[in-house]
């Protein structure tokens, strides 16, 4: 986890192509991948946010302007929006009402602001209309971090072709982009834009701020014709600032008109914009896209602006015009055209309202009694501090001056539809704020004039159509909480009423009697609080938003609407990407660690073994696996391994199938190894084939005994030939943990077992172990002859030396055993009396004891040491004899080719069949002759055969010593002798001898003579009889029994 790529900030989803009238589709190729561990990681990272966030402050300027599709408007954009020009001090409601403001030439030292008259006179579509030498209302230019501009009617939306366009014509935005870019200081980047027919929203950020903006998503909602067309609606952008602060900018143009239906339609438009605006999911700090897209209301700060088109209601528009022009006329020098126009109109009073207001406007200051426009609602609350405030402002409160502009504005604002909607919770009531309005209605003016309200025939009533609202996350929640409380109160009220409770004069009664018309007055659409509240953002950071000013730019002449803007100061926690990456990395590492600590961990200890240190002298570093040391044929070796749970959670362990080369025996361990745990497996299944698993608690350990035992002759042969090795790797699996590899090794000791007669007669003087450091005989390195090869290949013995030694030992131990038996005067039957096949079968010694001795015998053979020296002292002759005799049989059986090989046997059997056919049985003598002849075609085999059969007859003679007398008399020819022979045939000893011969022959025929494996059934039985006969005839020979 925690790859570096996940640390990378997502690319800003910038939409450079102009989207259509419908919400743009979610970003493609960015499927939401929410991984739980990543979530917990980002949570963990977030917990430490204080370490990687730094408090930042930027100023955000939001502007809106209905440009009425008039050309030339774009020339003014830089002047008012960026440079803050065109704000009229005298018409901002902050200056002294009724004061002659004309020709204030000496107010400013060197830069004299152009007069209204001059300004209007020089107006042209080619040049900006803003006053010259206007220093602008700060903050301006580079003091602003984010500029968000909403324009309406950049194309003529009243034209049917434009209104019905299914897509927006991007062409007009080009000139706007150019004009704004020209107006902005260098380095500002466009971070978002969205167009819907005539609506255009564009956001620029300073070079320092732009890189900290992410998750930009823009969209449009059309609410115009048919409820969907783009002639009305909104274009909206959502951005995330500093990875912490979600900001939404809504630029809307709602339905126009003064009639009742249009008001409701505006409210409907707004609700549609609210519900239908959907943004792409936000990338969280870890670069993970959140699962769901967001809408308006999910942000931390929303700015809603545009031509909302709300009007002044219940007031004749003409009265309002005239009343306001009483103020605006003061802007003009006497000779101005507009001035004359205004004066002309004002000279023709038309309504009583007008007269009353006119009087009020002309009242000398300080007359409280005639103040008709008291601060009835909060819209006349605190004023926004402005740098343009005149120095005497403190001494003079325009709100209490009935003739002041502010007093006039305040009285008009009580008729403002938007404020009424907010109060009555019909629109923009859920937490929206607006700065104090201390500027003239922004609509409708004669184009080219500062203060001439619509002089056309329509004489539209002036209205604050253009607005900038805003709402913080906190505002929204506060509203929702308030509604909840009210509902609760209402419910309680109803319940009490139902219960007939009539006491109402309690404190609670206030809560119960909710009247939206009146109680809504405390709804905060005036956001100009001096000390901004902490807003806890969706991402859990603490931000503060402060409205610096809210102004119209009265002296912009190019449209019939005046532009307006608001500047906000935003204090926010911004993520320092480098610091965050560091924290992220740390947390990822820590989580990894925790995860690993939660994983089962075991320690495997291979119990130290003395021998293993010396076996492999060649090995450099200490061997970490299980070393069996020297390994011999049929020699059990055990090693112990301890598996200890050194982790913190229970560990379930078990050996799993190891990987093997194709053709190799599969399974948990090689066939020569057995594994025993010192406890039953979890499932208590004794079947070694079943999966054996063992669960260890932390701090618990289990012993595993590994036992190596090699008995398979094929394996022995391969090991001796170097075709196989004692190397393997066991795999111990820890559930939910790692696999541990447990290497095994052993060093095979060369042995005479499992070899062919041809090889055995070439074994050097010191026994098979001398082959240890020679190249294995079977390996084909023919291209590279060892100098010793010739010597190694030389025949050294007429028959395997092992046979000399074994047969010799058997004969001598037989004698000794019998002597010992007699000497000890043991009671009961002697072994040879009990069992005809003894000492080759029917053993009297324990198998275990014999096993130890057999191992010694083999060692004696392979190292050419005298057997007696190797035998443990406690063993007696009978045990020794049995061990040696058994070893001989095993040795013969282990021979690769056999004493009588398959081929030799084929020859022998052929001869026997021929003789059978002739029906004239051969004498034993003759039979032995031709058998030996046949076998001796392979001389070593012939010699070996002779050795063994000779030894057998000697042993038989020893155990059934009947032949002694016979032989003594063997040369007799007298009748008596013949009689004796006859008699001896019925002799029980003689019969016993026959049993012995047959028993020996059965064992040795099987051990010496190899038959084709294909031979089965009756043929096999017949062959077995012949095979036994071949051996038996050699035993009989020594009887001297010629019959």
């Amino acid at each position, binding site marked *: 986890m925690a790859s570096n790529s996940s640390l990378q900030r997502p690319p800003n989803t910038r939409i450079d192509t102009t989207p259509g009238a419908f919400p743009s589709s979610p970003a493609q190729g960015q499927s939401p991948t929410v991984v739980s561990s990543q979530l917990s990681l980002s949570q963990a990272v977030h917990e430490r946010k204080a370490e990687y966030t730094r408090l930042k402050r930027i100023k955000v300027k939001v502007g809106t302007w209905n440009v009425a599709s008039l050309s030339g408007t774009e020339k003014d954009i830089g002047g008012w929006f960026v440079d803050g020009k065109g704000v009229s001090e005298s018409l901002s409601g902050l200056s002294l009402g009724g004061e002659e403001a004309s020709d204030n030439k000496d107010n400013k030292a060197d830069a004299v602001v152009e007069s209204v008259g001059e300004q209007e006179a020089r107006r042209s579509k080619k040049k900006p209309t803003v006053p010259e030498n206007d220093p602008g209302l700060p903050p301006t230019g580079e003091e602003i971090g984010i500029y968000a501009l909403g324009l309406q009617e950049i194309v003529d939306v009243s034209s049917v072709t434009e209104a019905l366009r299914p897509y927006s014509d991007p062409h007009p935005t080009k000139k706007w982009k150019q004009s704004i870019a020209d107006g902005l200081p260098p380095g500002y980047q466009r971070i978002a834009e969205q167009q819907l027919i005539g609506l255009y929203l564009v956001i620029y950020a300073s070079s320092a701020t732009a890189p900290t903006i992410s998750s930009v998503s823009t969209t449009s909602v059309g609410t115009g014709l048919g409820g969907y067309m783009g002639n009305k609606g909104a274009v909206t952008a959502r951005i995330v600032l500093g990875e912490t602060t979600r900001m939404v900018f809504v630029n809307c143009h709602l339905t126009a008109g003064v009639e009742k239906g249009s008001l409701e339609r505006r409210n409907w438009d707004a609700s549609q914009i609210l519900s239908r605006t959907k943004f792409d999911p936000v990338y969280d700090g870890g670069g993970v896209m959140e699962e769901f897209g967001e809408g308006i209301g999910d942000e931390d700060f929303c700015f809603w602006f545009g031509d909302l088109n709300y009007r002044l209601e219940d007031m004749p528009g003409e009265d309002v015009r005239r009343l306001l022009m009483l103020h605006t006329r003061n802007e003009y020098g006497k000779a101005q055209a507009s001035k004359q126009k205004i004066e002309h109109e004002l000279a023709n009073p038309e309504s009583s309202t007008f007269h009353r207001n006119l009087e009020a406007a002309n009242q000398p200051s300080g007359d409280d009694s005639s103040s008709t426009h008291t601060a009835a609602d909060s819209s006349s609350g605190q004023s926004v501090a402005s740098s343009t405030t005149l120095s005497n402002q403190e001494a003079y409160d325009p709100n209490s001056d009935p003739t002041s502009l502010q007093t006039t504005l305040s009285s008009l604002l009580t008729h403002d539809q938007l404020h009424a909607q907010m109060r009555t919770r019909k629109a923009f009531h859920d937490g929206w704020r607006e700065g104090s309005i201390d500027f003239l209605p922004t609509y409708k003016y004669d184009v080219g004039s500062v203060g001439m309200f619509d002089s056309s025939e329509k004489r539209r009533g002036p209205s604050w159509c253009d607005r900038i609202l805003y709402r913080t996350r906190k505002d929204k929640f506060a509203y929702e909480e308030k509604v909840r409380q009210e509902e609760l109160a209402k419910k309680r009220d109803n319940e009490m009423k139902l219960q007939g409770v009539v006491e109402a004069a309690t404190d609670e009664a206030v809560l119960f009697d909710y009247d939206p018309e009146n109680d809504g007055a405390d709804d905060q659409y005036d956001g100009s609080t001096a000390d901004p509240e902490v807003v806890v953002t969706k991402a859990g950071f603490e931000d503060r938003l402060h409205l610096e000013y809210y102004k119209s730019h009265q002296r912009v002449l190019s449209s019939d609407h005046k532009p307006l803007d608001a500047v906000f100061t935003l204090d926010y926690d911004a993520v320092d990407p480098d610091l965050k990456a560091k924290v992220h990395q740390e947390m990822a590492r820590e989580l990894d660690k925790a995860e690993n*600590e939660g994983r089962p*961990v075991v*320690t495997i*200890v291979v*119990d*130290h073994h*003395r*021998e293993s240190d010396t076996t492999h002298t060649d090995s450099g570093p200490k061997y970490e696996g299980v070393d069996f*040391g020297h390994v011999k044929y*049929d*020699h*059990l*070796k*055990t090693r112990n391994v*301890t598996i*200890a749970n*050194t*982790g*913190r959670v229970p560990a379930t362990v078990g050996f799993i199938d190891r990987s093997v080369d194709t053709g190799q025996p599969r399974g948990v361990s090689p066939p020569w190894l057995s594994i*025993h*745990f*010192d*406890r*039953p497996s979890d499932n208590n299944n004794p079947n070694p084939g079943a999966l054996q698993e063992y669960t260890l*608690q*932390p*701090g*618990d*350990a*289990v*012993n595993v*005994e590994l*036992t190596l035992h090699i008995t398979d002759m094929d394996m022995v042969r391969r090991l001796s030939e170097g075709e196989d090795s004692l190397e393997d790797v066991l795999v111990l699996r820890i559930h939910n943990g790692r696999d541990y590899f447990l290497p095994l090794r052993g060093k095979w000791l060369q042995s005479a077992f499992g070899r062919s007669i041809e090889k055995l007669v070439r074994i050097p003087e010191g026994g098979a172990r001398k082959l240890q450091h020679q190249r294995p005989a079977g390996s084909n390195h023919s291209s590279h002859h060892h100098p010793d090869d010739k010597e190694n290949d030389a025949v050294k013995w007429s028959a395997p030396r092992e046979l000399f030694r074994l047969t010799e030992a058997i004969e001598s131990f037989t004698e000794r055993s019998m002597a010992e038996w007699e000497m000890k005067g043991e009671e009961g039957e002697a072994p040879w009396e009990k069992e005809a096949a003894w000492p080759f079968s029917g053993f009297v010694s324990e*198998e*275990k*004891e*014999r*096993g*130890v001795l*057999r*191992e010694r015998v083999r060692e004696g053979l392979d190292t050419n040491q005298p057997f007696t020296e190797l035998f*443990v002292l406690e063993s007696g002759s009978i045990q020794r004899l049995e061990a040696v005799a058994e070893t001989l049989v095993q040795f013969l059986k282990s021979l690769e080719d056999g004493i009588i090989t398959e081929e030799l046997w084929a020859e022998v059997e052929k001869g026997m069949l021929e003789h059978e056919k002739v029906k004239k049985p051969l004498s034993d003598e003759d039979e032995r002759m031709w058998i030996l002849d046949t076998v001796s075609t392979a001389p070593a085999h012939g010699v070996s055969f002779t050795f063994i059969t000779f030894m057998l007859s000697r042993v038989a003679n020893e155990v059934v010593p009947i032949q002694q007398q016979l032989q003594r008399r063997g040369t007799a020819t007298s009748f008596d002798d013949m009689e004796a022979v006859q008699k001896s045939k019925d002799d029980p000893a003689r019969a016993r001898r026959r049993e012995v011969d047959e028993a020996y022959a059965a064992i040795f025929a099987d051990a010496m003579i190899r038959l084709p494996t294909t031979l089965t059934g009756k043929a096999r039985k017949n062959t077995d009889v012949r095979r036994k006969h071949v051996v038996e005839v050699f035993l009989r020979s020594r009887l001297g029994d010629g019959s």
Partner: protein
Amino acid sequence: MTSRVSTGTRPGARFAQFKLVLLGESAVGKSSLVLRFVKDQFDDYRESTIGAAFLTQTISLDDTTTVKFEIWDTAGQERYKSLAPMYYRNANCAVVVYDITQASSLDKAKAWVKELQRQANENIIIALAGNKADLVAEHPDKRAITTSDAEAYAREAGLLFSETSAKTAENVRELFTAIARKLPLEQAGARNMRSNPRQGVDLRPEAPGTQGGGACNC
């Protein structure tokens, strides 16, 4: 290694296996003592143990008795303290280590002894090891805990006691051997490798006699 491995079945040969746990403040030298005992090595710069380490060591007490220690070397750092019970659970013996040049380490050791006597096996054999004896051999003023004080405490609490040095190997093998001798070999019954899971002491013939002929551990 001095343990003798006999071939075949030697009558009376016994093999016992014990769980031993090391406890004590961080850096007193627990891991170093184990390393000295098991591998006869010493590191001047050892990493602090994380979680727990596990090692085994087999020693011979006499011709017929072999004792295998399963050694759990715990982490002395405070943050691993809560893990300790997992390791001293079922332990037959414990070595509680302190550093004779650090006064606080004996307090810690005493706390461990108390915990063991309260929470561990009833018959647990506890040895107290005052480690880093080599340091005071050169600079006697470095000693923070006198031998007699520690000895008195050990006697009172019923502990085996010796001052050790993992660095010079002084008293290390002796300490473990003393523990082995104190372990209740006599009462322990023969252990069947396959049926009797690790309960306390287990004694069994050294060579696995059930295996058939020729078995030996050599």
